[in-house]
């Protein structure tokens, strides 16, 4: 009962603070920009042109799901994660700096309860923010395109643009050779090459095509997964918030850690020169944070999703437990 009171107090404090809504405003701007971009400019994309050239009904191609997926792709790591860091990092350090932490701790509440209540409220906030992000994006897509997702391609931006032009299709024939100058045998070979390349492209697309009508369901699965992933970054920010007196320092340390681990991940995936990086890559939280993309495969590999979710859970729990231990021993001198 007393713990629930504490959660309520934290909830009221968080939800009445104007800065809480900055992340919602920023997310809204991003979602609108991406959805409008898709609405006005998607027909210029190589993917769209490719399907159009091959006789597909492209009126069904661009839909609410595609816009939402694109918004998630660009917004998750670079926007949502920093926004979550801002919220978590001010939880303890911000209150310590203002002096309101002592105002609370001179009351008959336990420090561990206080920290847990703050973390729970922040977790709810993450869920709300991601729900808002996905809901707004999908809702806006429905308004723009109507409730259709007949062709639901999870990663259209991974389809490579078609190079060359004309019947030869660019690289299909010998280099720099005009179609008119080719012999029949060369023309037949060029046609076969082009067909093969087109088939491979269709196969690539097919890997990402979700059964029609599944778009919303997949987004609903993505909601808790993305929230779970962001909670890991939040727990790191929470930890730095406990060990710093200033929220800016906590934010800077978390952002620094987040980007440093992303760089490590990038080094590991782009280089096989340093085996150590490749060895640690599966254990980096940024690697695991991408696990939400798994719910947009044709078949969701739940085993892989579960493994990554467990790894992220381990990180979250570890950082939160460390924060609790330090906060328990900390002298409040502000």
């Amino acid at each position, binding site marked *: 009962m*007393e713990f629930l*009171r*504490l959660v*309520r*107090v934290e909830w*009221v*404090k968080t939800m*009445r*603070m*104007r800065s809480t809504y900055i992340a919602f405003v920023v997310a809204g701007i991003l979602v609108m920009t991406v959805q409008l971009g898709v609405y006005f400019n998607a027909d210029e994309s190589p993917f769209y042109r490719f399907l159009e050239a091959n006789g597909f009904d492209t009126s069904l191609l661009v839909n609410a799901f595609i816009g939402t997926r694109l918004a998630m792709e660009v917004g998750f790591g670079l926007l949502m994660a920093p926004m979550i860091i801002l919220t978590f990092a001010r939880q303890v350090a911000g209150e310590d700096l*203002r*002096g*309101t932490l*002592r*105002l*609370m*701790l*001179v*009351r*008959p*509440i*336990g*420090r*561990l*309860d206080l920290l847990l209540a703050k973390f729970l409220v922040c977790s709810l906030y993450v869920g709300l923010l991601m729900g808002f992000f996905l809901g707004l994006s999908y809702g806006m897509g429905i308004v723009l395109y109507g409730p259709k997702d007949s062709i639901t391609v999870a990663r259209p931006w991974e389809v490579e643009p078609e190079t060359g032009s004309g019947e030869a299709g660019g690289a299909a024939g010998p280099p720099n050779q005009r179609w008119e100058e080719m012999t029949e045998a060369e023309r037949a070979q060029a046609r076969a090459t082009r067909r093969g390349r087109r088939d491979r492209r269709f196969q690539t697309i097919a890997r990402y095509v979700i059964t029609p009508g599944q778009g919303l369901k997949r987004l609903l699965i993505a909601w808790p997964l993305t929230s779970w992933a962001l909670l890991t970054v939040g727990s790191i920010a929470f930890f730095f918030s406990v060990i710093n007196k200033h929220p800016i320092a906590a934010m800077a340390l978390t952002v620094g850690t987040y980007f440093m681990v992303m760089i490590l991940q990038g080094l590991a995936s782009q280089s096989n020169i340093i085996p150590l990086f490749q060895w640690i890559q599966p254990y980096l939280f940024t690697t695991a944070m991408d696990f939400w993309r798994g719910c947009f495969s044709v078949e969701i590999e739940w085993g892989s999703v579960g493994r990554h979710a467990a790894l992220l859970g381990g990180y979250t729990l570890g950082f939160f437990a460390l924060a609790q231990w330090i*906060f*328990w*021993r900390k*002298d*409040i*001198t502000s």
Partner: protein
Amino acid sequence: MKEIVLETRGLAKRYGRRWVVEDLDLSVRQRDVYGFLGRNGAGKSTTIRMILGLVRPTRGEVLVAGRTIRAGGRRSPWPVGAIIESPVFYDYLSGRTNLELLASLSGGAPASRIGQVLELVGLTDRQRDPVGVYSHGMRQRLGLAQALLPRPELLILDEPLDGLDPNGIRDLRQVMTNVVETEGVTIFLSSHILSEVELTCNRVLVIHQGRRVFEGSTAELIADAGHVRLRTAGPRDPEPVLRGLGFIEAIGRENGAWRLRLPQERVPELNRALVAAEIDVMELTPLRRRLEDIFIGLTEAAGSEGAG
């Protein structure tokens, strides 16, 4: 014998190699208004934070209403209200909402109690305004209101008079007097305004460099060790009479009056002897020292001992 509300035993805190508070024993009894004095950096705030469980003592213990307080743990019951230095609040919330949230952290308080404390500190009219627009004095009063909310037995006030104008100081003094008289609250008051401590506190503790240099009643401290001032009129010189009284320990002159040292209980006897010698007594007053002078004397003496 009044019950002890707050007690510290061998309380000490070390930061690095420096002892900020060292083996501090104090005891505050029910309905005391207990002044806690010391120069800047003497260890007052650290002591108060240890009492409130904000800072973990290096050694020693704190007992509130007979129960040992541990930093960080849940405390129930916790009959304490506190203001620590400048009261801070959630500026974006109204005064009343701040009190509602803080009350729920203390186990809840009915709306009538919130209204009552707001009225007590004179903030009823401004309760719906965001605290961000409150003046310093209003924040101090709201600080007192939040401290009084859970009907505490012990009120710990760390520099509650800082930044208040004379009217604010008078009002706060009045509130303190009221809560002691009407609600039986015990007050532990740390302040630099010694004249206020002298006016409001019945007992004082003076610390210097984290160590206790005096603990006792205020009256005892400010009574000038048995000095009285004697002013006479008429042609008769009182000196022969004074020198003839064996219990007068010292005789001196000060601003046209006699300054005598004698046991306080012999003052009536002195008066009778002067009247019998037909000396007109115009004034016979036990002398009091100002707390400020005593404080400076005590802390300087402790400082020079420490240096020696």
